[in-house]
């Protein structure tokens, strides 16, 4: 992974970074953002910038009186030892899945319960809040994902291998941010299976009758 870090060419957009910093993105998008940042120091630094903006926005709000006993109650809460925040994730060595993603899957690539979605492509839908959805895609080397358009925003983060579409080549760590204007046919590069983490806040639209019927059954 360390070597990939210098090669990342396609980054998160500023609105996504700001949305993550603000804590207002759907959970599925947060997962893609947190996973990309685990692989990309440029975006980690950019996120820190947007978090600094959030801090200044907070500082600028008109202070609201807290309860009279708020400090005492907080100290009692601390003394009770009952309150602890979640620890930040760490990556299991040698996994293709960065830490935040490991919290959502049980196992590594070959032990997951992939479901075939046609054309040799498999997927695994991850459980998140319903305002958006996120899945792992496994595209065999040299295979194309059916041509599709988008109603909302689609984020596709490459975890392993690479794909090429009408826009560019996307290798490990790269993220493609697609909106309604983009119709694309991603093709996995030869060499190794391409594993992607893909999130969308609206159903994908496949062009062509057969994929459209398939779409009903596979739920993407």
């Amino acid at each position, binding site marked *: 992974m360390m070597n990939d870090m210098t090669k990342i060419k396609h980054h998160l957009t500023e609105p996504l970074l700001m949305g993550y910093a603000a804590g207002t993105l759907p959970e599925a998008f947060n997962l893609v953002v947190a996973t990309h940042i685990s692989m990309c120091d440029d975006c980690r630094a950019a996120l*820190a910038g947007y978090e600094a903006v959030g801090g200044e926005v907070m500082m600028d709000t008109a202070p609201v009186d807290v309860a009279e006993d708020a*400090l005492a109650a*907080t100290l009692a809460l601390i003394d009770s030892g009952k309150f602890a925040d979640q620890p930040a994730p760490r990556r299991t060595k040698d996994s293709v899945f960065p830490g935040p993603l490991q919290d959502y899957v049980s196992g590594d690539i070959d032990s997951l319960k992939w479901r075939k979605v046609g054309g040799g492509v498999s997927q695994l839908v991850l459980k998140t809040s319903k305002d958006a959805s996120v899945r792992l895609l496994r595209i065999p080397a040299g295979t194309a994902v059916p041509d599709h358009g988008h109603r909302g925003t689609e984020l596709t983060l490459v975890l392993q291998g690479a794909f090429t579409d009408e826009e560019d080549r996307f290798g490990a760590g790269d993220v493609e941010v697609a909106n309604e204007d983009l119709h694309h046919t991603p093709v996995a590069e030869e060499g190794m299976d391409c594993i992607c983490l893909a999130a969308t806040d609206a159903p994908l639209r496949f062009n062509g009758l057969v994929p459209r019927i398939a779409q009903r059954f596979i739920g993407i």
Partner: protein
Amino acid sequence: MLTETTTLRKADALPVPSTYDGAKAHLKRAAETSKVNTEQTTKRMAWVVQVYAVRDNQDRAAFAELFGYFAPRVKSFLMKSGASPDLAEECTQEVMATLWNKAHMFDPTKASVSTWIFTIARNRKIDILRKQRRPEPEDLPWGPEAEPDQADAIGLQQETEQLGQALATLPEEQRKLIERAYFGELTHSQIAAETGLPLGTIKSRIRLALDRLRHAMK
């Protein structure tokens, strides 16, 4: 109060309680190196010292200072984000308790105290208000030099201060849009790609700090 009486020219006259002894050097250094926004930067370094006092000595007086300043702002932020006053009060106390518990995680070369407390409040907002799981980036393990560099820490405090001032001087309409994004009134597709905020300097500084950390980890 430490935060209110601190001025640069009189660094040696600071009313520093005995528990802050170990941290005096930080403030002195801040006074010597700061060239811009000196008063505000000193105030930010005073918060850093207070977090250190909580971390090193479980200092309740230092915690009370931080609480007095930040809790009303955290509560305000949470209410603007849609929390009822009661829920915001409860969350605010949990945010400040988290500050105590995580004081050892605070790194002034990567965040100002205001930024750090904001991220804790943001996280609590997702946990309680949005009731969603909260994926976070992998933590970067520390290299051999665990104690952050003071000049870097001061530099970051200055840049955060400049960012705050830039925000304050943005045209009203633009500033309101940014505030609405942080209060959750805009979706990501409604957020403008160009904010008008000078984020380049702070990004580069943090990027360099990450490079050094990666280098030390090798």
